[in-house]
């Protein structure tokens, strides 16, 4: 709609321009007098909205001056208004006096709109924008970075994790191996499969995998299979899973809905059928990405099972610095068998967690390989028993292989 409106304004401008012999329009001479200098002064004072407004009010949003179109585009770009910047750079490139900066700027604006689309989960638009940026300016540096980020489609980015889990409560320990294979079928549709094996190493009675009162860890195999759909401002994930131990098999399902782009809301709901009864969870959250490199989220998890109903507060933060990523997720308030869509995993301890958190650090080793380190801590308790509160810790190392685009995505 915005693009259509801009096209109409542009068409009207061209018609009016033609009727005045291509000369600058006569309206608002008072506003135009000194408008350029006012804009420059406002920009020097770092007041970008005023810098842009000074020119737009004087010359309109579709100016007939190359310099004004270029400057409005540049200020729009600095204000992170990628679509407006791209429209203005396209206009500038058609005006008398157009130079190479118009096409270079257009590539930058397209790259920005690509990252905006990517941030709101619109991979198809993101890919189209980045490819167009490269067509406009083959030496554009950031568009290939975006294309590398989303990779080609279809593609699989397998992960393998190894973990060491300990519990002070029962002096038990376990090893875990986790395999995850998310596959992007198209820019909007993906599927994912995961498998986790937990094997007790010491202190285990060998009975229930994570369900004995004396040991938190036993043998357990977990299977996950899901599908994702993401389009602009909307993302949906569904997952079915089964947690199989010698004592029981716990089937379950979960669904997550995201509405928003740089900021928005999400809702995760999970249900699993344990031998002791059903465990149902619902977790509404709000999130914001104030910059492309910082993400914040907060919300609550409501758990309802045979032990009652509990609510915990959840917070999260993600920071991306260069080729590194740090993510922290924490909660305070009782949780049981907390489901995480990110993994996907289930914290299938035979205990409640009063508070705790997970810290993950990721490092891009190369264009195709990333290394992850993860530390978990949970303060656990077993209400109704004589067992004292204790701690659960987990240390994991993960490796992700991302087959990069190369020439496959049309570059």
């Amino acid at each position, binding site marked *: 709609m915005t693009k259509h409106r801009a096209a109409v304004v542009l068409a009207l401008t061209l018609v009016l321009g033609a009727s*005045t*012999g*291509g*000369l*600058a329009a*006569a309206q608002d*001479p*008072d506003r*135009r*007098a*000194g*408008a*350029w*200098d006012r804009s*420059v002064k406002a920009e020097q004072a770092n007041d970008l909205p005023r810098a842009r407004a000074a020119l737009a009010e004087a*010359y309109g949003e579709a*100016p*007939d*001056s*190359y*310099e*004004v179109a270029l400057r409005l585009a540049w200020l729009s770009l600095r204000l992170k208004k990628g679509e407006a910047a791209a429209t203005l750079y396209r206009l500038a490139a058609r005006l*008398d*006096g157009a*130079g190479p900066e118009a096409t270079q700027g257009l590539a930058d604006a397209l790259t920005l709109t690509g990252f905006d689309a990517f941030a709101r989960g619109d991979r198809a638009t993101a890919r189209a924008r980045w490819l167009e940026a490269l067509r406009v300016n083959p030496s554009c540096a950031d568009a290939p970075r975006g294309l590398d980020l989303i990779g080609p489609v279809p593609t699989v980015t397998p992960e393998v994790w190894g973990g060491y889990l300990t519990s002070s409560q029962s002096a038990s320990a376990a090893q875990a191996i986790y395999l995850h294979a998310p596959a992007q079928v198209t820019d909007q549709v993906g599927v994912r499969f995961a498998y986790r094996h937990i094997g007790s190493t010491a202190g285990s009675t060998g009975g229930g995998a994570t369900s004995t009162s004396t040991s938190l860890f036993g043998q357990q195999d977990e299977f996950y299979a899901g599908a994702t759909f993401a389009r602009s401002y909307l993302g949906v994930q569904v997952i079915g899973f089964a947690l199989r131990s010698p004592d029981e098999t716990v089937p379950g399902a979960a669904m997550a809905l995201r509405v928003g782009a740089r900021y928005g809301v999400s809702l995760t709901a999970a249900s699993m059928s344990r031998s002791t009864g059903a465990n149902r969870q619902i977790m509404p959250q709000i999130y914001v990405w104030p910059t492309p490199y910082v993400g914040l989220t907060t919300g609550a998890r409501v758990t309802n099972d045979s032990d009652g109903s509990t609510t915990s507060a959840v917070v999260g933060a993600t920071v991306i610095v260069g080729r590194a990523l740090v993510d922290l997720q924490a909660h305070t308030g009782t949780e049981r068998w907390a489901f995480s869509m990110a993994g996907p995993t289930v914290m299938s301890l035979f205990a409640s967690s009063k508070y705790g958190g997970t810290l993950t650090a990721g490092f891009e080793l190369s264009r195709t390989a990333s290394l992850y380190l993860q530390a978990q801590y949970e303060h656990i308790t077993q209400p109704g028993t004589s067992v004292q509160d204790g701690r659960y810790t987990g240390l994991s190392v993960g490796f992700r292989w991302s087959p990069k685009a190369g020439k496959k995505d049309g570059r």
Partner: protein
Amino acid sequence: MTSLTRACLVLALLAASLAPASPARQQSEPKTAVLYRESYTLEAKQDYAGALAKIREIRQAGGGSYFATLRMAWLSYLAGDYKASAAGYTEAIAAEPRAIEPKLGLTLPLLAGRNWRELERACRDVLALDARNAIARSRLAQSFYWAANYPDAASTYRQLVADYPSDLDHRTGLGWALLRMGRTAEARQIFEGVLAVSPDNVNAKQGLAAQ
């Protein structure tokens, strides 16, 4: 005829040709024509007040015409009385509303009086009749520039440069407008291009020095 007689005759003829016009000739020429001639003579001597006085006489004598009005406006401009000049051209425009000439004339006192807003309007009036008029476009560009409307100045000069590639004033005008917008590399290129063919061009030299 003796040689003496012939010589006297030649001298008489010569004297007659050099003598002032006879009263009969002066009487046959209208007074306004005489006044116009005198006005031109005084203008050539840069006696603009005197030249103006002659035109006023013509008008007082009932010779008020579009031509006399336009000439008064022109002589007022030359005399430095821009207000009177603008009034004169405005009167001429009223007399010949479809003519380009008085409208273009009006731009002279407005330009000299640095009345940029009125100059822009006057230039647009000319361009409404003659959209490609180079003088009006050039003065319009000047009005934009001096009103600190550099983008429109650059656009107008750019069109003029495209239409009149050898006109160096248009080029330096474009250079200055670009310079004011911080586009120093382009401006430098233009000034250097002008100096390459006009090594003593003061405007281009000043433009380079201002960077």
